[in-house]
Protein backbone atom coordinates (compact mmCIF):
# COMPACT_ATOMS: atom_id res chain seq x y z
CA UNK A 1 0.00 0.00 0.00
CA UNK A 2 2.77 2.37 1.00
CA UNK A 3 4.63 1.29 -2.10
CA UNK A 4 1.65 2.27 -4.21
CA UNK A 5 1.51 5.68 -2.58
CA UNK A 6 5.16 6.18 -3.48
CA UNK A 7 4.43 5.40 -7.13
CA UNK A 8 1.57 7.90 -7.13
CA UNK A 9 3.64 10.66 -5.52
CA UNK A 10 6.63 10.09 -7.79
CA UNK A 11 4.50 10.00 -10.91
CA UNK A 12 2.58 13.10 -9.85
CA UNK A 13 5.71 15.12 -9.14
CA UNK A 14 7.45 14.05 -12.31
CA UNK A 15 4.46 14.46 -14.62
CA UNK A 16 2.69 17.49 -13.22
CA UNK A 17 5.66 19.60 -12.17
CA UNK A 18 8.94 18.56 -13.77
CA UNK A 19 7.85 17.19 -17.13
CA UNK A 20 4.94 19.59 -17.27
CA UNK A 21 2.96 19.13 -20.48
CA UNK A 22 3.15 22.82 -21.41
CA UNK A 23 6.55 23.88 -20.14
CA UNK A 24 8.51 20.75 -20.97
CA UNK A 25 6.73 18.91 -23.79
CA UNK A 26 5.03 21.90 -25.50
CA UNK A 27 1.75 20.02 -25.98
CA UNK A 28 -1.68 21.57 -25.53
CA UNK A 29 -0.44 25.03 -26.43
CA UNK A 30 -3.42 25.98 -28.60
CA UNK A 31 -5.92 26.10 -25.69
CA UNK A 32 -3.14 27.38 -23.43
CA UNK A 33 -2.85 30.51 -25.54
CA UNK A 34 -6.45 30.69 -26.68
CA UNK A 35 -8.37 30.15 -23.43
CA UNK A 36 -6.09 31.72 -20.82
CA UNK A 37 -7.70 35.15 -20.61
CA UNK A 38 -9.79 34.58 -17.48
CA UNK A 39 -9.00 32.41 -14.50
CA UNK A 40 -12.43 30.75 -14.28
CA UNK A 41 -12.43 29.84 -17.97
CA UNK A 42 -8.88 28.52 -17.70
CA UNK A 43 -9.86 26.38 -14.74
CA UNK A 44 -12.86 25.03 -16.66
CA UNK A 45 -10.63 24.15 -19.59
CA UNK A 46 -8.14 22.44 -17.30
CA UNK A 47 -10.85 20.36 -15.65
CA UNK A 48 -12.35 19.39 -19.00
CA UNK A 49 -8.94 18.32 -20.31
CA UNK A 50 -8.21 16.33 -17.17
CA UNK A 51 -11.55 14.56 -17.46
CA UNK A 52 -11.26 13.71 -21.15
CA UNK A 53 -7.61 12.71 -21.01
CA UNK A 54 -8.33 10.18 -18.26
CA UNK A 55 -11.18 8.61 -20.24
CA UNK A 56 -9.23 8.61 -23.49
CA UNK A 57 -6.05 7.22 -21.95
CA UNK A 58 -7.94 4.39 -20.23
CA UNK A 59 -9.70 3.52 -23.49
CA UNK A 60 -6.49 3.60 -25.47
CA UNK A 61 -4.69 1.51 -22.85
CA UNK A 62 -7.39 -1.14 -23.15
CA UNK A 63 -7.28 -1.16 -26.94
CA UNK A 64 -3.47 -1.12 -27.10
CA UNK A 65 -3.03 -3.80 -24.47
CA UNK A 66 -5.59 -6.24 -25.80
CA UNK A 67 -5.63 -5.53 -29.55
CA UNK A 68 -2.93 -3.45 -31.23
CA UNK A 69 0.33 -3.99 -29.36
CA UNK A 70 2.64 -6.69 -30.82
CA UNK A 71 1.43 -10.10 -29.68
CA UNK A 72 -1.64 -8.67 -27.96
CA UNK A 73 -3.78 -11.43 -26.39
CA UNK A 74 -7.04 -10.81 -28.23
CA UNK A 75 -5.73 -10.37 -31.77
CA UNK A 76 -3.22 -13.18 -31.27
CA UNK A 77 -5.99 -15.52 -30.12
CA UNK A 78 -8.15 -14.67 -33.13
CA UNK A 79 -5.18 -15.16 -35.47
CA UNK A 80 -4.36 -18.53 -33.92
CA UNK A 81 -7.99 -19.56 -34.24
CA UNK A 82 -7.94 -18.78 -37.96
CA UNK A 83 -4.47 -20.20 -38.62
CA UNK A 84 -3.95 -22.99 -36.08
CA UNK A 85 -0.34 -23.99 -35.51
CA UNK A 86 1.11 -20.73 -36.86
CA UNK A 87 3.88 -19.08 -34.85
CA UNK A 88 3.58 -15.58 -36.34
CA UNK A 89 3.53 -12.68 -33.88
CA UNK A 90 0.56 -10.49 -34.71
CA UNK A 91 1.53 -6.81 -34.78
CA UNK A 92 -1.21 -4.27 -35.39
CA UNK A 93 0.70 -1.30 -34.01
CA UNK A 94 0.66 0.38 -37.42
CA UNK A 95 -3.02 1.09 -36.73
CA UNK A 96 -2.22 2.92 -33.49
CA UNK A 97 -2.54 6.51 -34.68
CA UNK A 98 -5.80 6.02 -36.54
CA UNK A 99 -7.29 4.08 -33.63
CA UNK A 100 -6.23 6.71 -31.08
CA UNK A 101 -7.64 9.63 -33.02
CA UNK A 102 -10.88 7.70 -33.49
CA UNK A 103 -10.98 6.83 -29.78
CA UNK A 104 -10.34 10.42 -28.73
CA UNK A 105 -13.06 11.75 -31.01
CA UNK A 106 -15.58 9.21 -29.74
CA UNK A 107 -14.50 9.68 -26.12
CA UNK A 108 -15.10 13.41 -26.41
CA UNK A 109 -18.52 12.78 -27.98
CA UNK A 110 -19.44 10.23 -25.31
CA UNK A 111 -18.28 12.41 -22.45
CA UNK A 112 -20.20 15.32 -23.89
CA UNK A 113 -23.45 13.37 -24.17
CA UNK A 114 -23.04 11.79 -20.74
CA UNK A 115 -22.29 15.08 -19.02
CA UNK A 116 -25.16 16.83 -20.79
CA UNK A 117 -27.61 14.15 -19.72
CA UNK A 118 -26.56 13.56 -16.13
CA UNK A 119 -24.70 16.70 -15.00
CA UNK A 120 -26.31 19.69 -16.73
CA UNK A 121 -24.59 22.30 -14.51
CA UNK A 122 -21.21 20.77 -15.29
CA UNK A 123 -22.08 20.77 -18.98
CA UNK A 124 -22.96 24.43 -18.78
CA UNK A 125 -19.66 25.12 -17.02
CA UNK A 126 -17.62 23.28 -19.66
CA UNK A 127 -19.46 25.02 -22.47
CA UNK A 128 -17.60 25.08 -25.77
CA UNK A 129 -14.44 23.57 -24.35
CA UNK A 130 -15.55 19.97 -24.57
CA UNK A 131 -15.79 19.67 -28.38
CA UNK A 132 -12.60 21.74 -28.76
CA UNK A 133 -10.62 19.14 -26.85
CA UNK A 134 -10.71 16.66 -29.77
CA UNK A 135 -7.86 18.50 -31.44
CA UNK A 136 -5.85 19.04 -28.28
CA UNK A 137 -2.35 17.62 -28.75
CA UNK A 138 -2.14 16.77 -25.06
CA UNK A 139 -4.68 13.95 -25.30
CA UNK A 140 -2.96 12.29 -28.23
CA UNK A 141 0.42 12.78 -26.58
CA UNK A 142 -0.72 10.96 -23.44
CA UNK A 143 -2.14 8.11 -25.55
CA UNK A 144 1.20 7.81 -27.38
CA UNK A 145 3.08 7.76 -24.07
CA UNK A 146 0.81 4.95 -22.93
CA UNK A 147 1.54 2.99 -26.11
CA UNK A 148 5.27 3.40 -25.47
CA UNK A 149 4.94 1.60 -22.14
CA UNK A 150 3.05 -1.42 -23.44
CA UNK A 151 4.44 -4.25 -25.55
CA UNK A 152 7.00 -7.03 -25.58
CA UNK A 153 10.04 -4.74 -25.79
CA UNK A 154 9.16 -2.98 -22.53
CA UNK A 155 10.85 -4.37 -19.41
CA UNK A 156 8.50 -6.31 -17.18
CA UNK A 157 8.66 -3.94 -14.21
CA UNK A 158 8.30 -0.86 -16.42
CA UNK A 159 5.08 -2.14 -17.99
CA UNK A 160 2.13 0.16 -17.33
CA UNK A 161 -1.05 -1.30 -15.92
CA UNK A 162 -4.41 0.40 -16.23
CA UNK A 163 -4.04 2.14 -12.88
CA UNK A 164 -0.59 3.53 -13.79
CA UNK A 165 -2.09 4.87 -17.00
CA UNK A 166 -4.89 6.58 -15.10
CA UNK A 167 -2.49 8.12 -12.60
CA UNK A 168 -0.35 9.38 -15.46
CA UNK A 169 -3.34 10.84 -17.29
CA UNK A 170 -4.76 12.57 -14.21
CA UNK A 171 -1.43 14.09 -13.27
CA UNK A 172 -0.82 15.19 -16.86
CA UNK A 173 -4.16 16.99 -16.79
CA UNK A 174 -3.25 18.42 -13.39
CA UNK A 175 0.00 19.82 -14.76
CA UNK A 176 -1.89 21.39 -17.65
CA UNK A 177 -4.41 22.91 -15.23
CA UNK A 178 -1.65 24.35 -13.05
CA UNK A 179 0.06 25.91 -16.06
CA UNK A 180 -3.07 27.40 -17.64
CA UNK A 181 -4.38 28.81 -14.34
CA UNK A 182 -1.05 30.48 -13.54
CA UNK A 183 -0.99 31.91 -17.05
CA UNK A 184 -4.57 33.19 -16.79
CA UNK A 185 -3.79 34.88 -13.50
CA UNK A 186 -0.86 36.67 -15.05
CA UNK A 187 -2.82 37.66 -18.13
CA UNK A 188 -5.64 39.15 -16.06
CA UNK A 189 -3.08 41.47 -14.48
CA UNK A 190 -1.53 42.10 -17.87
CA UNK A 191 -4.70 43.83 -19.03
CA UNK A 192 -3.67 46.83 -16.96
CA UNK A 193 -0.12 46.89 -18.29
CA UNK A 194 1.14 48.91 -21.23
CA UNK A 195 2.48 46.26 -23.58
CA UNK A 196 4.35 47.40 -26.73
CA UNK A 197 2.12 47.23 -29.80
CA UNK A 198 4.08 44.52 -31.54
CA UNK A 199 4.11 42.19 -28.54
CA UNK A 200 0.38 42.40 -27.84
CA UNK A 201 -1.64 39.18 -27.90
CA UNK A 202 0.22 35.92 -28.35
CA UNK A 203 3.68 37.52 -28.35
CA UNK A 204 3.70 38.62 -24.73
CA UNK A 205 1.94 35.39 -23.72
CA UNK A 206 4.74 33.35 -25.27
CA UNK A 207 7.45 35.44 -23.64
CA UNK A 208 5.79 35.07 -20.22
CA UNK A 209 5.44 31.35 -20.83
CA UNK A 210 9.16 31.21 -21.51
CA UNK A 211 9.91 32.88 -18.19
CA UNK A 212 7.50 30.52 -16.40
CA UNK A 213 9.22 27.59 -18.11
CA UNK A 214 12.54 28.88 -16.77
CA UNK A 215 11.04 28.88 -13.30
CA UNK A 216 9.75 25.34 -13.72
CA UNK A 217 13.22 24.24 -14.89
CA UNK A 218 14.33 24.85 -11.33
CA UNK A 219 12.41 21.71 -10.31
CA UNK A 220 14.62 19.48 -12.49
CA UNK A 221 16.04 16.52 -10.60
CA UNK A 222 13.45 16.72 -7.85
CA UNK A 223 11.96 13.39 -8.85
CA UNK A 224 15.34 11.67 -8.65
CA UNK A 225 15.92 13.07 -5.18
CA UNK A 226 12.48 11.90 -4.13
CA UNK A 227 13.13 8.45 -5.58
CA UNK A 228 16.37 8.28 -3.62
CA UNK A 229 14.50 9.34 -0.54
CA UNK A 230 11.89 6.64 -1.08
CA UNK A 231 14.34 3.91 -2.00
CA UNK A 232 15.87 3.35 1.43
CA UNK A 233 13.91 5.34 3.95
CA UNK A 234 15.50 3.91 7.08
CA UNK A 235 19.06 4.23 5.87
CA UNK A 236 18.26 7.63 4.57
CA UNK A 237 17.04 9.09 7.79
CA UNK A 238 20.13 7.73 9.45
CA UNK A 239 22.34 9.23 6.76
CA UNK A 240 20.65 12.56 7.04
CA UNK A 241 20.89 12.55 10.81
CA UNK A 242 24.60 11.86 10.92
CA UNK A 243 25.57 13.44 7.62
CA UNK A 244 28.48 15.84 7.55
CA UNK A 245 27.55 19.27 6.13
CA UNK A 246 29.21 18.74 2.75
CA UNK A 247 27.25 15.55 2.06
CA UNK A 248 23.91 16.90 3.15
CA UNK A 249 22.75 17.43 -0.42
CA UNK A 250 23.19 13.79 -1.34
CA UNK A 251 21.05 11.51 0.78
CA UNK A 252 21.92 8.46 -1.31
CA UNK A 253 24.99 6.74 0.22
CA UNK A 254 26.20 5.54 -3.19
CA UNK A 255 26.08 9.06 -4.61
CA UNK A 256 27.91 10.38 -1.57
CA UNK A 257 30.64 7.78 -1.99
CA UNK A 258 30.98 8.73 -5.66
CA UNK A 259 31.20 12.37 -4.69
CA UNK A 260 33.96 11.65 -2.20
CA UNK A 261 35.84 9.64 -4.83
CA UNK A 262 35.62 12.59 -7.17
CA UNK A 263 37.08 14.86 -4.52
Amino acid sequence: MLDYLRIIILMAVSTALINNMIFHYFVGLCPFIGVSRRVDMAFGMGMAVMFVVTVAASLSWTVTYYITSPGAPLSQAIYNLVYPGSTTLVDLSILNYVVYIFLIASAVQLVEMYVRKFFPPLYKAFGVFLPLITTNCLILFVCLEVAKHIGPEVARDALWRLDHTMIYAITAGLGFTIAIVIMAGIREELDHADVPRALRGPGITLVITGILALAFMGLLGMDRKLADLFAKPAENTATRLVASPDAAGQPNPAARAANQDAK
Partner: protein
Amino acid sequence: MANALPTVGQRFTNGLFSENPTFRQILGICPTLAVTYSVASALTMAGAVTFVLVCSAILISQIRHLLKPHLRILVFTLTIAVFVTIADRLVAAFLYDMSKQLGPYIPLIIVNCIIIARCEICFSKQGLVPAIGDALGQAGGHTLGLLAIASTREILGKGTWGGMSVLGDSWPAWGVLAAAPGAFLTLGLLLALVNHLTDKQAKPMWPFGALFNLLGRKRQVAPVREK
Protein backbone atom coordinates in the same frame (compact mmCIF):
# COMPACT_ATOMS: atom_id res chain seq x y z
CA MET B 1 -18.35 33.45 -51.41
CA ALA B 2 -18.14 31.20 -54.43
CA ASN B 3 -16.74 33.86 -56.73
CA ALA B 4 -14.35 35.22 -54.12
CA LEU B 5 -12.22 32.11 -53.69
CA PRO B 6 -8.54 32.91 -54.30
CA THR B 7 -6.68 31.45 -57.28
CA VAL B 8 -3.68 29.12 -57.19
CA GLY B 9 -1.10 31.90 -57.18
CA GLN B 10 -2.90 33.85 -54.48
CA ARG B 11 -3.22 30.75 -52.34
CA PHE B 12 0.49 30.02 -52.73
CA THR B 13 1.77 33.50 -51.87
CA ASN B 14 -0.79 33.94 -49.09
CA GLY B 15 0.51 30.78 -47.46
CA LEU B 16 4.07 32.02 -47.69
CA PHE B 17 3.55 35.53 -46.36
CA SER B 18 0.24 37.13 -45.47
CA GLU B 19 -1.27 33.93 -44.01
CA ASN B 20 1.99 32.44 -42.78
CA PRO B 21 0.93 29.62 -40.43
CA THR B 22 3.63 30.27 -37.85
CA PHE B 23 3.80 34.04 -37.61
CA ARG B 24 0.39 35.19 -38.86
CA GLN B 25 -2.11 32.50 -37.95
CA ILE B 26 -0.06 31.10 -35.02
CA LEU B 27 -1.28 27.59 -35.77
CA GLY B 28 0.38 24.30 -35.00
CA ILE B 29 2.93 25.76 -32.63
CA CYS B 30 3.21 22.66 -30.44
CA PRO B 31 5.55 20.79 -32.84
CA THR B 32 7.00 24.10 -34.01
CA LEU B 33 8.35 24.79 -30.54
CA ALA B 34 9.31 21.24 -29.75
CA VAL B 35 11.50 20.43 -32.75
CA THR B 36 13.31 23.72 -33.35
CA TYR B 37 16.27 23.07 -31.04
CA SER B 38 18.28 22.22 -34.15
CA VAL B 39 17.95 22.98 -37.84
CA ALA B 40 18.18 19.34 -38.90
CA SER B 41 15.20 18.23 -36.82
CA ALA B 42 13.21 21.29 -37.89
CA LEU B 43 13.80 20.43 -41.55
CA THR B 44 12.73 16.82 -40.97
CA MET B 45 9.56 18.01 -39.30
CA ALA B 46 8.89 20.50 -42.11
CA GLY B 47 9.36 17.70 -44.66
CA ALA B 48 6.88 15.47 -42.85
CA VAL B 49 4.30 18.27 -42.61
CA THR B 50 4.76 19.09 -46.31
CA PHE B 51 4.19 15.45 -47.25
CA VAL B 52 1.03 15.18 -45.15
CA LEU B 53 -0.33 18.54 -46.36
CA VAL B 54 0.15 17.75 -50.06
CA CYS B 55 -1.21 14.21 -49.77
CA SER B 56 -4.30 15.30 -47.88
CA ALA B 57 -4.79 18.19 -50.33
CA ILE B 58 -4.90 15.69 -53.20
CA LEU B 59 -7.23 13.26 -51.45
CA ILE B 60 -9.61 15.73 -49.78
CA SER B 61 -10.01 17.89 -52.88
CA GLN B 62 -10.96 14.77 -54.85
CA ILE B 63 -13.57 13.53 -52.38
CA ARG B 64 -14.93 16.98 -51.45
CA HIS B 65 -18.32 16.38 -53.07
CA LEU B 66 -18.91 13.24 -51.03
CA LEU B 67 -18.32 14.88 -47.65
CA LYS B 68 -21.28 15.20 -45.30
CA PRO B 69 -21.17 18.40 -43.23
CA HIS B 70 -21.47 16.75 -39.82
CA LEU B 71 -18.87 14.08 -40.54
CA ARG B 72 -16.28 16.14 -42.35
CA ILE B 73 -13.99 16.88 -39.40
CA LEU B 74 -13.83 13.18 -38.60
CA VAL B 75 -13.02 12.37 -42.23
CA PHE B 76 -10.30 15.03 -42.28
CA THR B 77 -8.72 13.73 -39.11
CA LEU B 78 -8.77 10.10 -40.19
CA THR B 79 -7.29 10.99 -43.60
CA ILE B 80 -4.53 12.97 -41.93
CA ALA B 81 -3.91 10.12 -39.47
CA VAL B 82 -3.38 7.68 -42.32
CA PHE B 83 -0.87 9.95 -44.07
CA VAL B 84 0.91 10.70 -40.81
CA THR B 85 1.31 6.96 -40.23
CA ILE B 86 2.91 6.70 -43.68
CA ALA B 87 5.19 9.69 -43.00
CA ASP B 88 6.14 8.28 -39.61
CA ARG B 89 7.11 4.92 -41.11
CA LEU B 90 9.06 6.65 -43.90
CA VAL B 91 11.06 8.73 -41.43
CA ALA B 92 11.66 5.67 -39.27
CA ALA B 93 12.87 3.74 -42.32
CA PHE B 94 15.24 6.32 -43.80
CA LEU B 95 16.17 8.61 -40.88
CA TYR B 96 16.12 6.26 -37.92
CA ASP B 97 18.11 8.46 -35.51
CA MET B 98 15.98 11.46 -36.37
CA SER B 99 12.77 9.53 -35.76
CA LYS B 100 14.11 8.48 -32.34
CA GLN B 101 14.92 12.13 -31.56
CA LEU B 102 11.61 13.54 -32.70
CA GLY B 103 9.75 10.81 -30.82
CA PRO B 104 6.04 11.56 -30.39
CA TYR B 105 6.09 14.83 -32.31
CA ILE B 106 5.71 13.23 -35.74
CA PRO B 107 2.48 11.44 -34.75
CA LEU B 108 1.36 14.72 -33.20
CA ILE B 109 1.14 16.16 -36.74
CA ILE B 110 -2.33 14.53 -36.75
CA VAL B 111 -3.67 17.17 -34.41
CA ASN B 112 -1.65 19.97 -36.01
CA CYS B 113 -4.19 22.73 -36.53
CA ILE B 114 -2.59 23.88 -39.82
CA ILE B 115 -3.68 20.82 -41.75
CA ILE B 116 -7.20 20.63 -40.36
CA ALA B 117 -7.65 24.36 -40.94
CA ARG B 118 -6.49 24.07 -44.55
CA CYS B 119 -8.80 21.08 -45.11
CA GLU B 120 -11.69 23.15 -43.83
CA ILE B 121 -10.81 26.43 -45.56
CA CYS B 122 -9.42 25.34 -48.91
CA PHE B 123 -9.15 21.63 -49.73
CA SER B 124 -12.84 20.87 -49.20
CA LYS B 125 -13.94 23.85 -51.31
CA GLN B 126 -11.59 24.02 -54.28
CA GLY B 127 -10.30 21.68 -56.94
CA LEU B 128 -7.05 19.77 -57.24
CA VAL B 129 -4.77 22.52 -58.57
CA PRO B 130 -5.66 25.33 -56.10
CA ALA B 131 -5.57 22.80 -53.28
CA ILE B 132 -2.04 21.68 -54.16
CA GLY B 133 -0.94 25.30 -54.59
CA ASP B 134 -2.39 26.12 -51.19
CA ALA B 135 -0.75 23.08 -49.60
CA LEU B 136 2.64 24.00 -51.06
CA GLY B 137 2.27 27.63 -49.97
CA GLN B 138 1.29 26.72 -46.42
CA ALA B 139 4.03 24.11 -46.24
CA GLY B 140 6.54 26.65 -47.51
CA GLY B 141 5.39 29.23 -44.97
CA HIS B 142 5.59 26.63 -42.20
CA THR B 143 9.10 25.64 -43.33
CA LEU B 144 10.19 29.30 -43.35
CA GLY B 145 8.83 29.80 -39.84
CA LEU B 146 10.48 26.65 -38.51
CA LEU B 147 13.79 27.58 -40.16
CA ALA B 148 13.73 31.09 -38.69
CA ILE B 149 13.12 29.83 -35.16
CA ALA B 150 15.52 26.89 -35.45
CA SER B 151 18.31 29.05 -36.91
CA THR B 152 17.98 31.61 -34.13
CA ARG B 153 17.93 28.98 -31.44
CA GLU B 154 20.75 26.89 -32.82
CA ILE B 155 23.09 29.74 -33.76
CA LEU B 156 22.69 31.55 -30.45
CA GLY B 157 22.19 28.45 -28.33
CA LYS B 158 25.02 26.31 -29.67
CA GLY B 159 26.96 28.52 -32.08
CA THR B 160 26.29 26.15 -34.96
CA TRP B 161 23.90 26.01 -37.91
CA GLY B 162 22.86 22.57 -39.06
CA GLY B 163 25.97 21.15 -37.35
CA MET B 164 28.40 23.61 -38.97
CA SER B 165 30.21 26.01 -36.69
CA VAL B 166 29.10 29.61 -37.22
CA LEU B 167 30.10 31.71 -34.25
CA GLY B 168 33.30 29.83 -33.43
CA ASP B 169 34.42 28.09 -30.27
CA SER B 170 34.72 31.25 -28.24
CA TRP B 171 30.94 31.76 -28.32
CA PRO B 172 29.50 31.21 -24.84
CA ALA B 173 26.59 29.01 -25.92
CA TRP B 174 23.34 30.41 -24.59
CA GLY B 175 22.13 27.06 -23.34
CA VAL B 176 18.73 28.35 -22.33
CA LEU B 177 17.82 29.05 -25.96
CA ALA B 178 18.42 25.42 -26.88
CA ALA B 179 16.37 24.28 -23.86
CA ALA B 180 12.60 24.45 -23.45
CA PRO B 181 12.18 28.09 -22.29
CA GLY B 182 14.22 29.34 -25.23
CA ALA B 183 11.59 28.07 -27.63
CA PHE B 184 8.90 30.24 -26.09
CA LEU B 185 11.14 33.29 -25.83
CA THR B 186 12.40 32.99 -29.41
CA LEU B 187 8.95 32.54 -30.91
CA GLY B 188 7.52 35.39 -28.83
CA LEU B 189 10.26 37.82 -29.80
CA LEU B 190 10.31 36.79 -33.47
CA LEU B 191 6.54 37.25 -33.52
CA ALA B 192 6.97 40.75 -32.15
CA LEU B 193 9.64 41.48 -34.77
CA VAL B 194 7.44 40.31 -37.63
CA ASN B 195 4.47 42.24 -36.23
CA HIS B 196 6.54 45.36 -35.98
CA LEU B 197 8.09 45.14 -39.44
CA THR B 198 4.71 44.62 -41.07
CA ASP B 199 2.93 47.20 -38.95
CA LYS B 200 1.41 49.85 -41.21
CA GLN B 201 1.22 52.44 -38.44
CA ALA B 202 4.83 52.15 -37.29
CA LYS B 203 6.09 54.12 -40.24
CA PRO B 204 9.68 55.25 -39.84
CA MET B 205 12.14 53.32 -42.02
CA TRP B 206 10.82 49.83 -41.65
CA PRO B 207 14.15 47.97 -41.51
CA PHE B 208 15.36 50.18 -38.70
CA GLY B 209 12.14 50.70 -36.80
CA ALA B 210 12.65 47.55 -34.80
CA LEU B 211 16.24 48.51 -34.01
CA PHE B 212 15.12 51.91 -32.79
CA ASN B 213 12.59 50.26 -30.53
CA LEU B 214 15.19 47.88 -29.19
CA LEU B 215 17.55 50.75 -28.46
CA GLY B 216 14.79 52.47 -26.51
CA ARG B 217 14.65 55.59 -28.65
CA LYS B 218 11.25 57.21 -28.93
CA ARG B 219 9.72 56.98 -32.35
CA GLN B 220 8.65 60.27 -33.91
CA VAL B 221 4.90 60.67 -33.75
CA ALA B 222 3.09 63.16 -35.91
CA PRO B 223 2.46 66.09 -33.54
CA VAL B 224 -1.27 66.41 -34.17
CA ARG B 225 -2.47 65.75 -30.64
CA GLU B 226 -0.07 68.12 -28.97
CA LYS B 227 -1.72 71.28 -30.22
